[in-house]
């Protein structure tokens, strides 16, 4: 990918790098970053909550397809965020279809730079629907987070603590413990980068 926009040259992060490799020495080392924990629950009756803004939504396509193939009876809930609804609602048509067919029980969206809707991040959505989210967790739901490690993942973590505090009626410390326990129990799993 290589084009000019607003007088600036734009190249794709991956394609641009590959294209920049020169001559005989043009080699790139490719490896898979393993994350064996980031797997769907074996018990298909469990509910699944997926939080994947931006490119973080990628694994959840597979998750939702897999759950459908499994005939999982648990519910699936996706949180997605991006800058613009029109241009960046990744896999929009697939999610719409999944909702229509009932494969996705819920789909919450946060768009951060559209002028006509409140600017939100996924954690803002989480807080808005905290009551339901807490009920899903109480009901044994698995929770997955994928995407930006630096900002998003910690912010989502903080939101989860807030939600447990508010809807579980606990202190901040206890809520923190509760969220940590979820992680220890491998019900709160992350694939962040």
């Amino acid at each position, binding site marked *: 990918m290589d084009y000019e926009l607003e007088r600036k040259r734009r190249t794709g992060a991956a394609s641009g790098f590959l294209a920049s490799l020169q001559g005989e020495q043009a080699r790139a080392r490719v490896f898979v970053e393993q994350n064996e924990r980031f797997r769907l629950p074996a018990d298909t009756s469990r509910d699944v909550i997926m939080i994947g803004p931006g490119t973080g939504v990628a694994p959840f396509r597979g998750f939702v397809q897999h759950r459908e193939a499994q005939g999982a009876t648990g519910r699936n809930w996706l949180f997605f965020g991006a800058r613009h609804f*029109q241009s960046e*609602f*990744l896999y*929009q*048509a697939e999610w719409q279809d999944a909702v229509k067919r009932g494969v996705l029980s819920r789909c919450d969206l946060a768009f951060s730079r559209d002028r*006509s809707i409140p600017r939100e991040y996924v954690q803002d959505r989480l807080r808005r629907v905290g009551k339901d989210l807490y009920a899903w967790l109480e009901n044994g739901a698995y929770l997955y987070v994928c995407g930006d490690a630096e900002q998003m993942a910690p912010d989502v973590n903080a939101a989860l603590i807030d939600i447990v505090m508010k809807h579980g009626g606990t202190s901040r410390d206890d809520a923190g413990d509760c969220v940590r326990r979820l992680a220890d129990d491998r019900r709160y799993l992350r694939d962040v980068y």
Partner: protein
Amino acid sequence: MSEQSPVERIKRNSRHLRGTLVESLQDPLTGAIREDDTVLIKFHGSYQQDDRDIRDERRRQKLEPAYSFMLRTRLPGGVCTPAQWLQLDEIARRYANGTLRITTRQAFQFHGVIKTELKATMQAINAALMDTIAACGDVNRNVMASANPVETSVHPVVHDWAKKLSEHLLPQTNAYHEIWLDGEKVVSTEAEVEPLYGATYLPRKFKAAIVVPPVNDVDVFAHDLGFIAIIENGELQGFNLTVGGGMGATHNDAETHPRVADVAGFLKPEQLLAVAEAVLTTQRDFGNRAVRKRARLKYTIEDRGLEWFVAEITRRQGFALEPARPYKFETTGDRFGWTEGCDGRWHLTLRIEAGRVADTAKGPWLTGLREIARVHRGDFRLTPNQNLTIANVDANARAFIDALVVRYGLDRHARATPVALNALACVALPTCALAMAEAERYLPRLAQLVDERLAANGLAGAPLVLRITGCPNGCARPYLAEVALVGKAPGRYNLFYGGDGKGQRLNALHLENVDEPTLVAALDAAFRRYAGERLEGEGFGDFAWRAGLVGAQAA
């Protein structure tokens, strides 16, 4: 009931046009509204559209089509104030695609409004003291009226009747106010009265217009309901009633066709509303609700006969029409440039190709008209030919307006050829979902090709009414043009010849499915004969019939 068209079911179940519009607007997963609601939103003056140029690309990206909405104002007679113009200009730039479009029904149209801004846009339009109620849908649409009659003193009278007629035939449902303007909910929808329309409204769209001869700018014979103003000694005596006109047709379907309205009789001004109501309710009760493409009034009249129809409206309105009075039309075109009114004030009609007021390569028209609106003290009139009249200018303000017009490149009327000046095109691609071929985007080239062929045959500057639409639906009234192209497929058109330039006679098919080279060759041949064989003062449309380019002798 089962044989009724699906649209009838949607209307009946809509609780007077509410449907699930509120839910549709709130659905964050899509920029579209639910399918049934796409039918209902038309009654609220809006169509759902998508950018067809990028449909495939978005599908590959797994994105839904780039949905947006067209919004159309209701503006009887097409008159607005400079203050309103400024508000609409702002809406065009803030919520729409920077274009203020003048429609062939003398209304404003905004394109590219996204779902999440639809309500704000509606509210902004209402803040400009306009609304969009019934601008589309199976109801009486925007009522048209001659924009700049020769008999200028009649304009306010006729405009007033257009407003009254529009108000009188307006749906009464509170749905519009509830959904868009946060109006209070009317609790019992059952009790809600829609006295004129009932729960299922009309079988199909319904168009009305008032015309002041000799300029048939509104194309009165293309409407379901028309009134020809009869003026004697500068005074309005009454109207001739016309019924059953309509442009829409479907390719290769003999059941459908355009039709020129019948003149049914004469009525007094104070009888106008009663007659209009009688015509509308007759169509409501007898129009075809099973087959939508046969649902316009023209087919009701055709199927049952004009005599039956006149008897039916006579019964409903409670009085008989008088015999029609004489009238004469000379042209459908606008009177460009400055014309003087009877009160010594002046009207300047500008050419706005395809009605598109925008800042483009042609010139900063949107900006220019904004500047004019800031200083203009009269009003603006949208013409049925999608042009604009800056009306009621004091003699001493003319030079100032002229300077602005020149500065912003709005003086096309002074430069364009007669063909380019009077041509009409519908929106078509990429906006209109029904379009089969280009129209507006092709018009500049088409007008040039026609002019070149005219010039090549020694006919440079000949006046000729040229129209093009992207499909046979006929939004730019192509079937009344002397030369018309109606889209069949990308780059392919049916070519029609033979309107009379006065809007009183339909043209007829000359060649089917032509591409550009075939079109150019056909025009060249036709113009060569026209140049050699025409009679004194004979228009091309008249010639086409006499010479057998269309009609029984053709083909």
